[in-house]
């Protein structure tokens, strides 16, 4: 049943290929994403997650199954993210008639790829589905992109291909080193990988996944790509597809914890590169789209910080905050950046420029656009009440979880502190951009512009709604994440609520002891 989640968009692709009426394609795409969303909700509500036994075997030796299932809360949340952003993306942007079919097919393929990767329970398809987006991205940027579209299309494609290949090396090494005869995650988790191999595997995984996530210094593809690609493509890419790398690292971390911890300091240096280096690059951007692209790269540093905290702790049990923090922030960032990129596209459509020097004072002409953009901008710099803040604050807590007051600061704590400074940097560029676009006197291209029409507003309002809901009630998402939460909530009912203790104590025993008192 869960396979339908991937099949629906693919069927949509076939329907577009078969169909003759180009007008219907856009509507079809939206409908398909809606159906997928409803399916997801339905499956989750009915508790259908599809175990291993029903997945068809596609290869006997080693055993590879077309395993698609809602593996755990993380999968579900990433699925939600994909469906949410894809739905909004389907309603954003437009193109010439003759490219309409290609446009919608690309969109559906990218969405299907992301969904497939997130719900695969098998390493092979986990990797394979992600690549489904490569060619559509290449085509869409090349045909319909902004600016130096051809160069950028090449750069992004080769870069992503390179990252995928390094990743593949890591995965293959992992498989052969584990000696497993089945590539299902469940079976892989049962194996143990010799520690001398773990280091190498972990390095490959970090670089491979890192390239896909635009980890410094493998980031230079990302910003131009997001800036150049047509809005729905960049929304899906920056919002959803990029999260695949982080999802993968979190998913595979339990397999190579020792190897990862060997590279902890490397990860930290790189993530600081993301936050500080790219943050400074972002400050210096003169165009709104490039600024957003770079900011998205920068924010990946925060998710990596949560990952670093996880590495430092060694397992989820040691630092229960890190994983949920990373996932929540991934979700929040995905929705936010999608919203920002979608609205940026609108700004370009309405004013004909994205050069910050030519913009200004839009807020008085287009109050709705200004409000929605401002909301998303504020979300991305971590305004409480919007989803990103919840994620970020949890990331910081995760970063300090491993700190004991008696010892000096560990590298993760130092990274956390630097990341906190990154909040200042991101506020600088985001507010500057907002100020130059929407506030102050009118710029050379903004003497007249129309506000968003109702149909243009809808996707952004939808995303804003998601941001607010998750921002105010993060537990809606976090509650999906696992059983550990519900267990302790049962035990907590025995105590008065004010007695709940938040302890960074690394020894679970003493924590329990305090809880029991």
């Amino acid at each position, binding site marked *: 049943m869960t396979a339908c989640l991937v099949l629906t968009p693919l069927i949509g692709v076939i329907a577009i*290929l078969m169909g003759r009426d180009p007008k219907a394609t856009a509507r079809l795409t939206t409908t398909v994403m809606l159906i997928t969303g409803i399916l997801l909700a339905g499956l989750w509500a009915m508790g259908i997650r599809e175990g291993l036994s029903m997945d*068809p*075997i*596609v*290869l*006997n*030796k*080693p055993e590879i199954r*077309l395993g698609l299932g809602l593996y755990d809360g993380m999968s579900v949340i990433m699925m939600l993210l994909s469906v949410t952003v894809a739905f909004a993306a389907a309603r954003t942007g437009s193109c010439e008639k*003759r490219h309409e*079919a*290609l446009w919608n097919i690309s969109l559906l393929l990218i969405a299907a790829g992301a969904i497939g990767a997130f719900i695969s329970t098998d390493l*092979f398809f986990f*990797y*394979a*589905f*992600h*690549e*489904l987006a*490569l*060619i559509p991205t*290449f*085509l869409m940027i*090349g*045909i319909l992109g902004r600016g130096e579209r*051809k160069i950028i299309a*090449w750069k992004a*494609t*080769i870069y992503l*291909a*390179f990252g995928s*290949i*390094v990743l*593949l*090396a890591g995965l*293959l*090494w992992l*498989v*052969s*080193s584990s*000696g*497993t*005869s*089945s590539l299902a995650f469940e079976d892989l988790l049962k194996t143990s990988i010799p520690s001398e*191999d773990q280091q190498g595997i972990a390095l490959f995984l970090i670089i491979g996944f890192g390239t896909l996530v635009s980890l410094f210094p493998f980031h230079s593809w990302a910003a131009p790509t997001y800036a150049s690609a047509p809005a729905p493509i960049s929304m899906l890419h920056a919002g959803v597809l990029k999260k695949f790398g982080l999802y993968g690292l979190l998913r595979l971390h339990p397999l190579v914890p020792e190897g990862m911890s060997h590279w902890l300091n490397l990860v930290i240096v790189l993530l600081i590169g993301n936050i500080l280096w790219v943050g400074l690059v972002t400050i210096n951007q003169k165009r709104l789209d490039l600024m957003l692209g770079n900011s998205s790269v920068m924010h990946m540093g925060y998710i990596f910080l949560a990952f670093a905290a996880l590495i430092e702790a060694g397992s989820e049990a040691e630092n229960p905050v890190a994983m949920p923090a990373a996932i929540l922030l991934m979700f929040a960032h995905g929705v936010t950046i999608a919203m920002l990129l979608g609205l940026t596209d609108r700004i370009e459509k309405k004013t004909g420029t994205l050069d910050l020097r030519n913009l200004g004072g839009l807020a008085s002409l287009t109050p709705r656009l200004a409000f929605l953009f401002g909301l998303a901008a504020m979300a991305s710099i971590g305004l409480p009440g919007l989803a990103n803040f919840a994620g970020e604050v949890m990331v910081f807590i995760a970063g300090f979880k491993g700190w004991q007051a008696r010892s000096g600061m560990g590298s993760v704590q130092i990274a956390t502190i630097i990341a906190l400074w990154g909040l200042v940097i991101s506020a600088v560029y985001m507010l500057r951009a907002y100020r130059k676009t929407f506030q102050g006197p009118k710029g050379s291209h903004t003497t007249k512009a129309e506000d968003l029409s109702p149909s243009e507003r809808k996707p952004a309002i939808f995303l804003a709604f998601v941001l607010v809901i998750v921002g105010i009630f993060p537990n809606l998402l976090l509650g999906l994440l696992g059983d550990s939460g519900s267990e302790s909530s049962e035990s907590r009912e025995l105590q008065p609520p004010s007695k709940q203790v938040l302890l960074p104590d690394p020894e679970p025993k003493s924590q329990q002891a305090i809880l029991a008192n």
Partner: protein
Amino acid sequence: MPAYWLEATVVILGLILLLMEAFGKSTSRELLRRVAIGGLAFTLVPLYFAVAPSPDNAELSRFYIYDNWAVFFKLLAIVATILVLLMAYDYRRVLNQFTEEPGTDHGTGEFYALPVFACAGMMWMASARDLVSIFVSLELVTITFYILVGYMRRQVGSLEAGVKYLILGALSTGFLVYGMAWIYGVTHTTNLAEISIAIADPDSGIAANPSPLFFGLSLMLLSLAFKIGAVPMHLWIPDVYQGAPTPITAFLSVGSKAAGFIVALRILEPFFASEITRTQTTLIVLIMAGLTLLLGNLAAIAQTNFKRLLAYSSIAHAGFILLAIAAWHPGDAGSLSTHQVVSLYLATYLVITLGAFFVLVVVRNSESSDEISAFDGLGQRNPSLAACATILLSALAGLPLTAGFIGKFFAFQLAISSASANKALWLGVGIGFIGVAASFYYYLKVVRAIYWREPANEEEVPVPQISRIVILSLTALTILFGFWPNPILWVIGG
């Protein structure tokens, strides 16, 4: 039915075709082609029922082996030949221009008969287990191809390709027999099974001084590299592929290559099995693999001719397969053996490459050019053909969820899992990864032409009926195998 009748059947089929051509008055080419394809398709039936020759028949079973690999590679040969013949039909307009009487189909009868002989040769290669039978079957294929490559006598390119193929082929034959002579001299036998025993013996004179053995092995391996298109014997490939008639290029790149690989596997097996020779053999194959990967992929980057691009692509693919061979692995419960990986790779490669050549033939018919620029704006002129071409090209690049990924996935997996024992393999893996990254570039160059560029004219590119069906089914297979490679494994008997 003993299996060797299969080859006999195919040879007889070829003879019948020749006789029909020679003596049948005004036998239409259409009929020839139908008989050829029908006959080959019919051969598939006995292929299913055939049994190995009984061991009592010592004189034959000494030369002839009939195992899973033999079945599989015979199947590959027959399927490839059938598809090539189908392609030849849609290529006839080009072919007719350059043969005896331009514009007519006189003098093109052999074009449908000779591939059948080549097919027989390939089938025999799949079963050869003796240096003698290997040599003879190999030469049957090679000499047939001499004629086919230079078939378009009125086109300079085809003739030039024919001569190059002839001279270099003969040169490699020279190396082959000289190498065989030395191996025979050292091991006192031409039978692979006996060679295997001879070189495994740690107490023999061979172990004491294996140099002559390596001398022979090097020569033999390098001349096999000629067949499979590996460095340093790859040099003929771009020129010959470009000059030869397109169906023959396709045939060279799938049929001849596959047959070359099964022979290589058969010859290498004893050398990998023996402690004495394993290191050196791995070294040779690994050097070949690394150089082939590097050269095939990097030299392809700047190509502008699609056929030549496919030639370099064919070199590159040979490199990936060689990598899997260098990481020799007999297979166990959890992973595939080298044989299986090579077979899997070749099967998927056949599907994809033939698909790509079909697309080329269609475009060539319409645009009279093999250049990549002939594909400009195909996305607007024929969207479905463009979509199929894109899928096939992505598959060649090894994009996941297409058949092209499966082969690369397992080739790399094999290499990486053997790399823990032999660190040098990491180098090969590294070069392979560089190659994959580069390959994305040059395959997508064609995709770029198809979609980004504006078409020279707005006319729809016509697709003949046969090509349409074949391209669609090959594309469908490409996707199907990408999701579900198991059927190939069933045939191999994994």
